[in-house]
């Protein structure tokens, strides 16, 4: 944390990438921007393609993995985190920890009391919304009561 104090500014915080002529600014080389962009595009195509096959549950993980790779590219290069002060990296990664905490506990609990849930309760709001079955012109009965 120390290197964030105004007293001790050092450009090493910018990952040793020279550019001292630009002061503390650190322009990204164009080739890098473009290659990151095309990598992202490629990954998008891949994820769309893989969604054509039915992989069952694996599909979720496949898509999420690809998405995470893309997200990493965006954060590291476009958002410049690779050359940024470590504190900023800590900040954003820390937030992910708390997201994990939040989702983790809530989902774990929801899974825990799942068997107690009453489904398709015959409360008005959850009636099926198809009023009439054209073949037998009679109202389709509500979902069976528990």
């Amino acid at each position: 944390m120390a290197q964030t104090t105004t007293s001790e500014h050092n450009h090493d915080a910018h990952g040793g990438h020279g550019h001292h002529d630009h002061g503390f600014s650190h322009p990204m080389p164009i080739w890098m921007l473009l290659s990151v962009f095309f990598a992202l595009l490629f990954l998008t195509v891949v994820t769309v393609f893989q969604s054509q096959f039915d992989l069952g549950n694996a599909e979720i993980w496949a898509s999420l993995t690809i998405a995470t790779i893309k997200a990493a590219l965006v954060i590291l290069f476009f958002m410049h985190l690779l050359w940024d002060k470590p504190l900023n990296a800590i900040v954003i990664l820390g937030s992910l920890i708390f997201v994990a905490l939040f989702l983790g506990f809530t989902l774990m609990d929801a899974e825990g009391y799942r068997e107690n849930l009453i489904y398709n309760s015959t409360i008005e709001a959850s009636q099926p919304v198809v009023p009439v079955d054209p073949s037998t012109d009679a109202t389709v009965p509500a979902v069976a009561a528990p």
Partner: protein
Amino acid sequence: MSVADRPITSPVRSEVDSYPEHHFLNHSKGFLSWALTLDHKRIGLMYLVGVMSSFALGGMFALMIRIHLWNFKDGWLSNQTYNQVFTLHGAIMVFLFIIPSIPAALGNFLLPVMLGTKDVAFPRLNLSSFYLWVTGLILFLTALSVTGLDTGWTFYTPYSIETQQGGAVLAATFGVFVLGFSSIFTGLNFIVTINTMRPPGMTWFRMPLFLWAIYATSIIQVLATPVLGITVLLLSAERLLGIGIFDPKLNGDPVTFQHFFWFYSHPAVYIMILPAMGIISELMSVHCHKGIFGYRMIAYSSIAIALFGFLVWGHHMFTSGMADVTTIVFSALTFTVSIPSAIKVFNWLGTMYQGTVSLNTPMLYALAFIFLFTIGGLTGLPLGALSTDMHFHDTYFVVAHFHYVMMGGTLVAFLGGVFHWWPKMTGRMFNDKLGIVSAIIVFVGFNLTFLPQFVLGSRGMPRRYATYLPEFQPLHQLSTIGSITLGSGLLLALIVLLMSLVNGKKAPRNPWGGATLEWMCSSPPPHDNFSSAPTVGDPYDFSNIEYDGRTGGYVKRT
């Protein structure tokens, strides 16, 4: 002992010569110079006025509740009105008073001065979060005036979806949303200021503990409040469109709402108490004229509390049908929080040891805090332990517990802080004798109000009851008497402060003998706090600070 012995605040002191010609109060004139100010000190004062008036409003509701409960039935309010009153009492106190009280009001005024900077990092953001707070206030007042909110401050679904007071619920949820962002931006501002704007020499471990507390608080504000934002946003979508995510009628899950809500609202408890602990650390050391005991332990425990605070929200839901494993995990984590709090209390006592305790108003409030907060903390044990909580949950025991922490803790510390820094903020000394009287009345009234409620709760009196069993009546009446005492004590405190503005002696630079930076600049401080970066020393080194009869305050021996 007679008050006059203590030279510090005695009214018969020689004329103060260090009163500044130009300071932030007379830096510029006119309404706009306040309404559009970017000066953190003025914003802090505007917050101070704001939170104090919303506290008055919430307190009024509290008295209405207590008076209604004088009789076990046929109180002077109808059930509906009673529900609306306790809802607004809770909502106003939590969202409009406690959460912004110390960080936004005192924090805004003190943080840059204690840190030795000219201002916070983002003055405009600072001003806009004040106006966000005002917007939230207005929305709450609309909720109050439209139909009256009757959901309880927790907005539990599905009641908040089904209640007839739809307009009020909408107004209030939007209000909470806006207030949430106000609080986020304050926290964000403080974190950045402390990280990037510390002057040379102000290392992390030369920061006053109040700043450590504020820093820890800000972390919580930034991390937790957004979840509240999305929760109330989804809730208002429930009301407007019926999206059903929290509505069992649409297979939505009300328990999930409680998870969402408490993921913010439990850490919020630490948003409320951490800055209070910070204030107490300052008050104890300054008024004992002795360095704080175990500086690093207190600093670390603040951060520890902030982080552990995120792991325990489930203890608000022990009976709500959480899965058993979650329940037990949360109970275990709950106890981890109690340790750092205990450490702080012991350290404050250690600070008094061999000190030079000046028993003036701020110090008495600080001592009251230690007494009340200890009770509040200890009564948390039976609530964290699962089997006993099954009995105490949602009873008056809980009510008494969190009032001991929130009010006996945060409010008392807030008052102590206001008295402590009042000379710095206004440049006026208050009447210390009357201040002491107010502190004592508040202390007595508080215990009279809330001690009986522990017994009520353990005997099974549920919360949020407009009518109750006759056998509970005596204790309720005792509590009501206490609440009136408490109210009058608070009123007296307010009068003392206001009187000082009229006929208070001009305050010296350093009336209490503090060693932190805010006492180095004049009272009230100049517009830019420090013309040049101040020399930073150990914030708790009192060895060379001596009383100076000519100024009626303390000076640093050079």
